């Protein structure tokens, strides 16, 4: 009971009374979201943006307005990384701390910010101007190191550019002015492109090549819902977020549920480190995405949709809002879409707030409902009882885009691309040690060797396929194919050359899972901490041969007993490297001497007592003369 701690330590908790002006502002914010508890994440985001933290008094006020208890509000506020229960600076700088950033001189960039702003990572400046933080992958691995400055993204930083950015901020420059002097005159699309490069290296036939506007939707409207589902199913389209469930079946299940309402949710919460394909689709193909969602709505009979955008992509908010508004004004969203009587569908944008787990279907729905991003108990499945208990289709950005294209070009066209069981094209987000990091749209079925040749990463010694929850493979597996049945990936391909330390990468990925576990179930909450500590033992050269069995054993328990996909895959960095890079582990283990544990360091254990007693040890210090 962390909130009780303040009391017992005698530190006075911040006042529980709000000044009248703030009370009015908070009330207005809640009102803006109809005092609806299901919009809690929006309310808290708005309060965070306005006050730079969620004060206890604020939580009381929000609880009152939304008819919740204070602890329920606090539960949500304390869950998301981008919400804060302590005051943050007017400008919050979040440095992207991914392994790819670390290998692109994140250290130098961090040092530059720390030096200029006079604060360390994790601190807020005394005048309340700046907070400096690190955050896991923000989806910019192709242009690392990157940072979020409030809602602005800076990419391709060097210690020099970081220094000048920090100095400009220090002298009062607004974050958006760092992007352009004329920021306010730019269109949302231009603003996005000034901040982040698309890095489209290879445009394929489906998504990134020429795409006719709303051609799929026109055809869908001439079909019955059943025909639409049939066509998507016949195309062989499978979910592109990583799990690979057959999209047509998902739509069919949801459509067959009799309910008052159905919902379509787009999962644009791509948080898997090394994945940034949806970022590019959201920037370059937003209409195609909305078209796909509209088609899905037609197929399952949904009138409402939600586009869940990860908090890290807040810089795309205006762009998407503009697209939605544009489509509403052109009759492509709203009632009687394209003149089709009775076909009503609209979409709201839901912004996340820094939680990888929200990419999990159930957690995403929880988050949309204004709750902590905790996965839901299955069954029931979302297609049966999802958002607010209604049948809900949750698909990835890329999946919806593909669906729109399939409706236009036909199931056979899509089915003919790729391989048996993995049809169509896939967007690969390639980053790390290669010549051309970026987005590659390729048909399924290429081998890793072929992909590495295309991206200029032939000297790779290891490739992380599918991000940390995927697998790390070695050169002897580069002949394997990028398909659902062989090397499955939601899109992340991270290339590592021979200079990289595998254990360091594994330790980083475990720290990522520790940070991102929701904490609901025991094995994932606690077990991942133990795994991370065990890997650190290997890094320090203090591991025994038996510790290799311990890693496998503990991983097994976590995988078998975890409640959702996060825990079921979090040991993968360890298990896949144990399998594919066994020497990395066996080279550093040492059998223990006489049964004495190397992990126990007597010298560091008595160090503080030496200082307090001002004497050396008669037992463990050999030289008493000093």
């Amino acid at each position, binding site marked *: 009971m962390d909130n009780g701690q303040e009391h017992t330590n005698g530190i006075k908790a911040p006042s529980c009374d709000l000044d009248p002006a703030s009370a009015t502002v908070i009330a207005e914010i809640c009102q803006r979201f109809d005092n609806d508890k299901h919009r809690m994440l929006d309310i808290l985001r708005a309060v965070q943006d306005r006050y730079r933290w969620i004060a206890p008094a604020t939580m009381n006020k929000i609880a009152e307005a939304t008819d919740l208890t204070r602890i329920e509000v606090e539960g949500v506020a304390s869950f998301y990384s981008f919400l804060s229960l302590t005051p943050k600076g007017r400008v919050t700088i979040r440095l992207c701390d991914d392994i790819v950033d670390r290998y692109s001189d994140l250290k130098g960039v961090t040092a530059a910010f720390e030096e200029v702003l006079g604060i360390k990572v994790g601190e807020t400046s005394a005048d309340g101007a700046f907070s400096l933080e690190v955050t896991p992958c923000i989806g910019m691995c192709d242009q690392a190191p990157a940072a979020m400055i409030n809602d602005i993204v800076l990419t391709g930083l060097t210690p020099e550019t970081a220094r000048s950015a920090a100095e400009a901020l220090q002298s009062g420059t607004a974050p958006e002015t760092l992007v352009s002097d004329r920021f306010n005159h730019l269109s949302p699309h231009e603003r996005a492109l000034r901040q982040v490069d698309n890095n489209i290296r290879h445009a394929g036939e489906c998504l990134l090549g020429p795409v006719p506007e709303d051609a799929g939707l026109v055809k869908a409207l001439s079909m019955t819902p059943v025909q639409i589902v049939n066509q998507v199913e016949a195309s062989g389209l499978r979910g592109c977020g990583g799990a690979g469930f057959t999209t047509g079946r998902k739509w069919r299940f949801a459509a067959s549920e009799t309910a008052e309402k159905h919902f379509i949710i787009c999962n644009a919460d791509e948080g898997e480190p090394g994945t940034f394909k949806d970022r590019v689709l959201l920037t370059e193909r937003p209409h195609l995405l909305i078209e796909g969602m509209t088609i899905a709505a037609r197929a399952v009979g949904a009138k409402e949709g939600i586009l869940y955008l990860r908090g890290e992509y807040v810089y795309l908010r205006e762009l998407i809002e503009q697209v939605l508004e544009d489509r509403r004004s052109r009759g492509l969203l709203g009632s009687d879409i394209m003149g089709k009587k009775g076909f009503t569908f609209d979409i709201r944008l839901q912004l996340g707030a820094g939680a990888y787990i929200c990419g999990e279907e159930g957690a995403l729905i929880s988050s949309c409902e204004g709750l902590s991003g905790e996965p839901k108990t299955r069954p029931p499945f979302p297609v049966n009882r999802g958002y607010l208990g209604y049948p809900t289709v949750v698909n990835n950005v890329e999946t919806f885009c593909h669906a729109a294209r399939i409706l236009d070009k036909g199931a056979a066209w899509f089915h003919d691309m790729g391989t048996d069981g993995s049809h169509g094209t896939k967007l690969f987000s390639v980053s790390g040690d290669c010549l051309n990091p970026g987005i590659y749209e390729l048909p399924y079925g290429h081998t890793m060797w072929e992909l590495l040749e295309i991206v200029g990463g032939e000297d790779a010694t290891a490739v992380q396929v599918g991000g940390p929850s995927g697998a790390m493979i070695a050169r002897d597996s580069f002949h394997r194919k990028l398909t659902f049945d062989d090397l499955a990936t939601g899109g992340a391909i991270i290339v590592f050359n021979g200079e990289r330390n595998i254990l360091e990468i594994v330790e980083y990925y475990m720290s990522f899972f520790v940070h991102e576990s929701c904490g609901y179930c025991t094995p994932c909450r606690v077990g991942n901490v133990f795994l991370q500590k065990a890997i650190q033992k290997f890094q320090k050269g203090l591991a025994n041969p038996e510790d290799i069995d311990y890693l496998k054993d503990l991983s097994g328990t976590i995988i078998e007993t975890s409640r959702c996909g996060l825990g079921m895959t979090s040991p993968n960095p360890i298990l896949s490297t144990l399998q594919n890079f066994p020497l990395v582990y066996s080279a550093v283990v040492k059998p223990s001497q006489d049964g*004495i544990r190397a992990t*126990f360091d007597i010298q560091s*254990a*008595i160090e503080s*007592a*030496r200082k307090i007693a001002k004497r050396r*040890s*008669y*037992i463990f210090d050999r030289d008493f003369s000093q």
Partner: protein
Amino acid sequence: MNDLAPAPHRKARIATASLAGCFGCHMAILDIDERLIDLMKLVDVDRSPLTDKKRFTDRCDIGIIEGGCCNEENVHVLHDFRRNCDVLIALGQCAIMGGLPAMRNAIMHSDAPLRECLDEAYITGKYIRNTTHQVPNDPALPLLLDEVYPCAQVVEIDFQIPGCAPSGDIIFDTLAKLLNGKFRGFEPEMIKFD
């Protein structure tokens, strides 16, 4: 008595030590009561507070450790036991998980935790009557460790007998079965952590 095999041709050698504990586990060994007589037909006791032998006279088959490690001397003794005993048994909760002394671990989270702990215990604590107003620092006092370590974090432990203190029955039962090679774990009803 059924657990005790007829005396083998060589008596097993046993050593015991009390580290950071209350000596209660050693007292519990006496709770074996009259069965001690049968036990003593099978074993010789080497280094132990029970014999007052301060050093190993020979390599031992079994070493029994009460208490965890709170100071350097505990570590030294435990190392010595690990090197001189084939099988090492952690007896009781302190040896197994730190026990009462380990209460200090969870409260020591400041920058200078050990100093704070000693200050609280000897100087600033509300109910302290310490006329010297000093933290004891005789050169004969072993240096304290930064925290209290369960035995298994310092050396490899082969068996643990749970309890605070373990009952005479579980101690006798376990030793008897270990001596005749029949130990296959505890009956769940015998396991107690208090």
